[in-house]
């Protein structure tokens, strides 16, 4: 088991390095760089002449190492990441990229993981519920809803929910994590009063983030339900389920001990690929709802060719994908002896 984990982990490290390289190259592909944008900014806004602006841009390139050859830039980027934990410098924010990401990553992960857990739990339970009732009314209704949910574009759902929040519920602040009055309230658990404040802040937080969780999770609910239903139908027809019934187990025991654990197999296997799917959902929903997460950060950095932010965001998404797969592999090994022993 430990050998299995070590093996998988070392493969993952290699994959992450590969992803870093690809992210970096992809970011360099569009023509021009941040200095070009800076140059046109100087010409248009500052009234500088072409040559003055070019000189400024060149200075800028030298200062941030943009004039160096690409392999060297990549090397420096990776070196600083490993040795100093620095992800490069954001030209637009004039701050360290690592700092920016550290600020936003926990929120992003909170949203993505919440969306992920909700969609998995709801989807699996719904799948287990409808499978033994194949072609019943409940099954058909669930299938209908699932198809609609997976077909609707997420940005559209986000807009619809935002419209509903603002015009029907008349909630005042939709594009933030907290209402203004709670922003300065600390997460404290010391006294009874503080606990009350923290609780109120938590409720306020949930009130603001549920649309993102729902939007990012909805498609996942539909997918998980369809997959779980299909697996359950396969497993319920398997011979060992008949064996379990012929032992004299109740239908509930047959499901819990035999059919469900086997049906979970493919769901767990693709959990690793679902995490980035959730991040992508979180990205769309956050951008529409204007929540300051990594998704919005990536979008703006791509617009103004703020390469280190963009590359680092892509890298983070890559790392999360790999981590998701690693976790899925390990959980599968825990569940299934055939994976564990081979």
């Amino acid at each position, binding site marked *: 088991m430990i050998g299995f984990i070590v093996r998988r982990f070392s493969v993952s490290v290699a994959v992450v390095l590969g992803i870093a390289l690809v992210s970096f190259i992809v970011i360099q592909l569009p023509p021009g760089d941040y200095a070009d944008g800076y140059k046109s900014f100087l010409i248009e806004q500052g009234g500088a002449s072409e040559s003055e602006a070019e000189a400024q841009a060149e200075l800028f390139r030298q200062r941030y190492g943009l004039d160096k050859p690409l392999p060297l830039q990549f090397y420096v980027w990776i070196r600083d990441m490993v040795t100093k934990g620095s992800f490069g410098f954001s030209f637009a924010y004039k701050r360290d990229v690592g700092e920016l990401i550290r600020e936003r990553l926990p929120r992003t992960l909170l949203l993505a993981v919440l969306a992920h857990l909700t969609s998995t739990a709801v989807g699996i339970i719904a799948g287990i519920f409808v499978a033994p009732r194949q072609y019943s009314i409940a099954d058909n209704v669930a299938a209908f809803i699932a198809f609609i949910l997976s077909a609707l574009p997420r940005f559209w759902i986000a807009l619809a929910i935002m419209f509903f929040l603002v015009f029907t519920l008349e909630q005042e602040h939709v594009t933030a994590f907290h209402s203004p009055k709670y922003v300065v309230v600390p997460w404290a658990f010391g006294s009874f009063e503080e606990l009350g404040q923290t609780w109120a802040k938590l409720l306020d937080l949930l009130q603001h983030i549920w649309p993102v969780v729902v939007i990012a999770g909805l498609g996942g609910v539909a997918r998980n339900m369809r997959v779980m239903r299909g697996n359950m139908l396969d497993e319920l027809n398997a*011979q060992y389920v008949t*064996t379990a*019934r012929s032992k*004299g*187990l*109740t239908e509930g025991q047959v499901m819990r001990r035999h059919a469900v654990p086997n049906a979970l197999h493919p769901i767990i296997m693709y959990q690793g690929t679902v995490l980035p799917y959730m991040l992508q959902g979180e990205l769309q929903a956050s951008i529409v709802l204007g929540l300051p997460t990594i998704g919005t950060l990536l979008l703006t950095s791509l617009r103004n060719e703020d390469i280190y932010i963009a590359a680092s965001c892509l890298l983070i998404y890559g790392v999360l994908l790999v981590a998701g797969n690693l976790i899925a592999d390990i959980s599968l090994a825990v569940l299934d002896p055939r994976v564990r022993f081979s």
Partner: protein
Amino acid sequence: MTLSQQAPSRSAAKENNDQEDAILELRGLKTYFFLERGVVKAVDGVDASIGRKKTLGVVGESGCGKSVTFRSVMRLIQSPPGRIVEGEILLHRKDGDTVDIVKLDPRSRQLRDIRGAEIAMIFQEPMTSLNPLHPVGRQISESVLLHQNLSRRASLERAEEMLNRVHIADPGRRIGEYPHQLSGGMRQRVMIALALSCNPSVLIADEPTTALDVTVQAQILDLMRELQDEFDSAIVLITHNLGVVSQMADHVAVMYMGRVVEYAPVYDIFHNPKHPYTVGLLNSVPVLGRKDDKKLVPITGMVPSPMEEITGCAFADRCPQAMEICWQQTPEFKEHEPGHSAACWLHD
């Protein structure tokens, strides 16, 4: 009172009337499948009785309803579309009561107490009949825990003992192993251990050796015979292998199109078959060393579609001895010689 009745030997017990000493009786059992395309009468009026500690061989072509009949006994028919529409399945329980299994709710406590404890089943596919996620010991002890008042630990010890009884070497290690670590023959042994772990009075073996190598087949059959003596179980052996039947069975029921067409002691089936279908089956078995002039004779024609509405005898179209009446009236299944019944107009 004669001496032989006071101390009946195994052969003397065989002479006893089946009805008196039956453990399981099927009466007019009909199991239909209600599909969109029509109604499939998979089992269409089966009468059979299984004697205590006896072996009944059930033979017939694929699709003749032999598996469905005994899955009905365990109430393992998926519903919908399948349903027992008529008939009785009488089980004489260990406590002396007689219960009609057809009348029980498939989810009832009463039926679950019968499954595994009084009637157990072995299936054709040893590769898939065990759950791949649990160690085999736990799969056996699960059944023991359910039906016997034992602790978790004692039930695992029972599982180990059962593995020993089915001649699996090093049972202490094997109980912790998973099905994928065992060979097909071993898994079938585990299934037998599982089935017998609660001393059932009836063991239904649905083609238990079909998926195994010939050498392993023989071992498994020997094992079943040996354990039948130890555990005093009646065995229902469903197979299409007449060789297996001749070795194992006390009585044989030949099924065709959802009905039993002939029922007799094993000797009579092979030496004095009454139904032309039985004769056809026997003629199509290859025998090692048989002379060239006795070539294999296949049964001509095809099995009719199970959805066809048939008047008269279902076998008439394929029967070399068919008469006018065979297409007009269904022959009754009745006793033509003591202990030997058939459904055929030839003997009326």
